[in-house]
């Protein structure tokens, strides 16, 4: 009796572990299929003409340069707006905050902001910046809406990075007669910087891939924006319109591949910084 019970115990164990392996394989498989499909269909498009020239003709033939410029412009502008605020907010939560009503409210607000659907953030950008503040469709309106979307993300990664700095290193600094800000600015932030940068880069990847927020704040007019007050169509929006239109699919695949490569680049840079930093610290 004993052995049979032990046998089906090991078989269930083996089956269960098999299922777990399947789950992992399915996950990697899903990623693989998507990447492979987009690469296979999009690689043909990645000619310098496609990347650097403007779309023309009935169905957006030609290149997608203005959308690339619009995407980079709004992403960088959003980063410039939100990163300082997010990092300093994280410094407050990690270093200065004393457990109390105020901190709970801030944390709840940050979590809520992080879970706002991007379509709602898009309409907010439209109501607040495009119409409310009369900015009209512009890179600035989109950057501000994106800034609110990214704020909680960067706040969280920065706070984790700051908390990862060991306590006794801080005390080492205090022990030398450093003030709080001296300790934070000269010891804590510098040693947390690599992880903070990683968080910022990943957030940039999220901003670059955003559609719902930018479509209602930057509009869809093909334009390589120079001034923040100008409208423009980003790559994700271009992909959406091409896909919905459904005629010029090669351009859609090309845009999708460029988007994925851009996100891949963000991810790999972030990963590189983390590994280089870990090696440097020894």
């Amino acid at each position, binding site marked *: 009796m004993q052995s049979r019970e032990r046998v089906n115990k090991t078989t269930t164990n083996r089956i269960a572990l098999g299922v777990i392996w399947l789950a992992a394989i399915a996950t990697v498989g899903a990623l693989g299929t998507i990447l492979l499909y987009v690469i296979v269909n999009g690689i043909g498009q990645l000619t310098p003409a496609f990347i650097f020239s403007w779309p023309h003709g009935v169905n957006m033939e030609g290149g997608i340069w203005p959308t690339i410029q619009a995407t980079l412009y709004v992403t960088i502008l959003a980063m410039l707006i939100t990163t300082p605020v997010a990092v300093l907010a994280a410094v407050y939560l990690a270093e200065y905050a004393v457990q109390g009503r105020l901190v709970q409210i801030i944390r709840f607000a940050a979590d809520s902001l992080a879970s706002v659907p991007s379509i709602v953030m898009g309409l907010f950008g439209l109501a607040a910046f495009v119409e409310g503040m009369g900015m009209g469709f512009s890179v600035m309106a989109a950057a501000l809406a994106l800034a609110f979307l990214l704020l909680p993300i960067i706040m969280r990664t920065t706070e984790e990075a700051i908390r990862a700095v060991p306590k006794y290193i801080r*005390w*080492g600094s205090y022990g030398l*007669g*450093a003030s709080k800000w001296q300790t934070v600015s000269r010891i804590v932030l510098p040693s947390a910087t690599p992880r903070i940068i990683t968080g910022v880069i990943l957030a940039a990847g999220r901003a670059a891939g955003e559609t719902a927020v930018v479509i209602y704040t930057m509009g869809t007019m093909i334009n390589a924006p120079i001034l923040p007050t100008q409208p423009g169509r980003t790559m994700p929006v271009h992909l959406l319109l091409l896909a919905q239109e459904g005629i010029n699919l090669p351009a859609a695949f090309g845009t999708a591949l460029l988007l994925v490569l851009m996100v891949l680049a963000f991810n790999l840079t972030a990963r590189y910084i983390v590994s280089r930093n870990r090696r440097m610290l*020894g």
Partner: protein
Amino acid sequence: MSDTLASHMTGVIPTDNHANKFSVQKLDFFYGDFNALTDITVGIKENAVTAFIGPSGCGKSTFLRCLNRMNDLIPGTRNEGRVLLDGNDVYAPGVDPVDLRRRVGMIFQQPNPFPMSIYDNVAYGPRLHGVRKKAELDEIVEASLKRANVWKEVKDIMGRGGLTLSGGQQQRLCIARVLAVEPEVLLMDEPCSAIDPTSVQKVEDLMAELKDRITIVIVTHNMQQAARVSDYTAFFLQEVAGEPAHLIEYDRTASIFTSPRDRRTEDYITGRFG
């Protein structure tokens, strides 16, 4: 309390040539509303090494941190009684703990060099307090590393990260870092418990050299170390869990280890408990 106990409580050793660097009067310390230390009165001798010994958890480290207000970093702590440094109460309102900590440096159990180069580690303190010129910094850095008995081992690798050194070297780097801000007092919280024996020897040697110009207070649960390095020893004990710890006996190291006045001190140093 028995009469004899009361007399030791005064913590003042009448016949001695050293003046009191710290004079602590009726100090009580609270974590929230838990009274961790009670009624501590002791005079810590200037330019001498004083050891705090006692079983772990008897509050000797906590008391050490009262001397340079490091406990302020822990939210919800407060203390009563007075801690006088050269006659001035460090907890008086308006006293700048930042300046206090510059004058009363601290070394921790876990070596904690900054994630920077060796040079920057030692130069961090002086830079904090306004030293800008490189020549001046170089001079301070070299002097401090020499005083910390680690110069020969690091002088050619100043650019390397502090964390790449061995445990013992790191601890001496931390000592050099503190010396760079010319403290008057050096508090050492079990500095040798996490480092290799040869480094322990070097740290103890440098304590002997430093003590002629710096007051040193060392917390250790290693009685042989206390006997070797200290001139005076204070024995702390928390007799009942949950009850506050207090100072049992304070005397010259020689007499504490040869003829302890209090039976509990004798039990502790003969290893009968704790």
